[in-house]
């Protein structure tokens, strides 16, 4: 099995998001009719089915909605990271985004803790990850 970590695969729905990340901007679709900010990206608003959306730049701040600690690697690319934290981060703008909590011990993480985005640059890609705020 490959020990290189997987990278994002671009499609028609997520392209704008990952292009924003390359500029260290966390950008989400916001419905131009009802204002719902959505993630994962989608063609239309799941609240009102309006297709027109603007890309808003999120503050990058949020809280830990939930988190897990991987003690086993399902892919060799993550073996050296064990144990690592995957979390659902609820952003101030509303959507929940699945990412990692980095820069701390897994035992330091708890639900509802405040976090902010930090950027993990890998070649031409930047992955939005999060660190605990004091």
């Amino acid at each position, binding site marked *: 099995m490959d020990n290189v*970590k*997987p*990278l*994002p*695969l671009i499609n028609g729905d*997520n392209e704008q998001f990952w292009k924003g990340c390359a500029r260290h901007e966390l950008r989400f679709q916001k419905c131009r009719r009802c204002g719902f900010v*959505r*993630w*994962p990206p989608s063609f239309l608003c*799941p609240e009102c089915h309006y297709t027109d959306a603007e890309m808003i730049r999120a503050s990058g701040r949020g809280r830990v*909605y*939930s*988190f*897990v*600690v*991987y*003690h*086993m*690697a*399902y*892919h060799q*690319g*993550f073996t050296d*990271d064990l*144990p*690592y934290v*995957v979390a*659902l981060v609820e952003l101030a703008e509303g*959507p*929940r*985004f*699945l*990412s*990692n909590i980095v820069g701390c011990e*897994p035992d330091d993480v*708890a*639900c*509802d803790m405040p976090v902010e985005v930090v950027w993990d640059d890998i070649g031409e890609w930047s*992955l939005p*990850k999060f660190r605990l705020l004091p």
Partner: protein
Amino acid sequence: MKPSNGCAVVGVGYTSQGRVPGRTMLSFHVEAAAQAIADAGLTGKDIDGLICYRHFPAATGEPDVTPYLVAEHLGISPTYLSQEANCARSHLLHAIAALEAGECNYVVISYGHNALSSDSILKLLYQKGSEEMVFGHFGATADYALAARRAMHLFGTGPETWKHIAVGQRKWANLNPRAMHHGRPMTFDDYFNSRLVVEPFRLFDNCLITDGGRACVVTTVERARDLPHRPVRIMGFGHHHPSSGVQRARHLAGPTGAKRAGERALRMAGVALSDIDACEIYDCFTYTVEITLQDLGFFGPGEGADWFAGGRIEPGGAMPVNTSGGLLSESYQMGLTPVTEAVMQLMGRCGDRQMGPATRTKEPEVILCTDNGGTLQSCACYVFGRE
């Protein structure tokens, strides 16, 4: 919603299960279906409906298990043929609809997988969207662990509750010679000593991975009367598909689909929770059993630890749960693990684990059953009764 319906399960098909190398996914589907047809006292010529469980990624060198292939290998040409494309669980509803519409007389529902001995599960793992894989997130264990962690935070559940589910179901498996964990008792210490996989889940919070298959035959109650086994009537059913995956989901710590699905099934069956003699709950993880029973209304949020304590769900307990050992300790046959066990208990064919005097439990008249797909994205609830 109709007050009741006139369909019954009349046969169950088992295969070798556990680690069974050298077998294709297709072979388990076909063997289970053929066993179920024979168990119902029928032949392939009688079968005019076939519904297959989810189409898993084919193992290397094997064909995709489409319902065409299963029908071809069974030598049948049904009037109704279907398969869930993903994980939603509405198979019995499809069977009932085909029977009540007069489209079919005898419908087979089948599942099979060489999950333990092939690379199919690995392929499934890497089907996850790239947005999640780049963060090292793979598979159902971690998705359910995210749900369970939020539940721990919201209503104080956790391993002290889940240990009762893992150990209680293991006691049932120890009475079931077919169970993968037959002959392997589990104590609370064993539970806590099992390795952490994706915290908060330990190994023993996870269901088994199984080579094997399972099937059942559904027909009308009228036709069922001419067949060898005591028919098991489908008294009521209800479904709810919250649908959203973990990022958009708002149901991870409940209420899950089990709430609406359960209410609808009980109402259709015309029974209350107090009429239920046992539950066969889809138990991909220990937490799934807790949140499902909680959402069905057996106890309030966070009261699970007390409800499960004292062996309530075990042999000798007041509310037996997952009496085959379930997905955690018997085998993983998707929703057919709970469904076939409910049917076998109501038919009175469960041997050492049979509810009644042998296990110091009630004689079962009414059993509630759930099936669950995705990360709590689908729930199907069925109430089965002795005809």
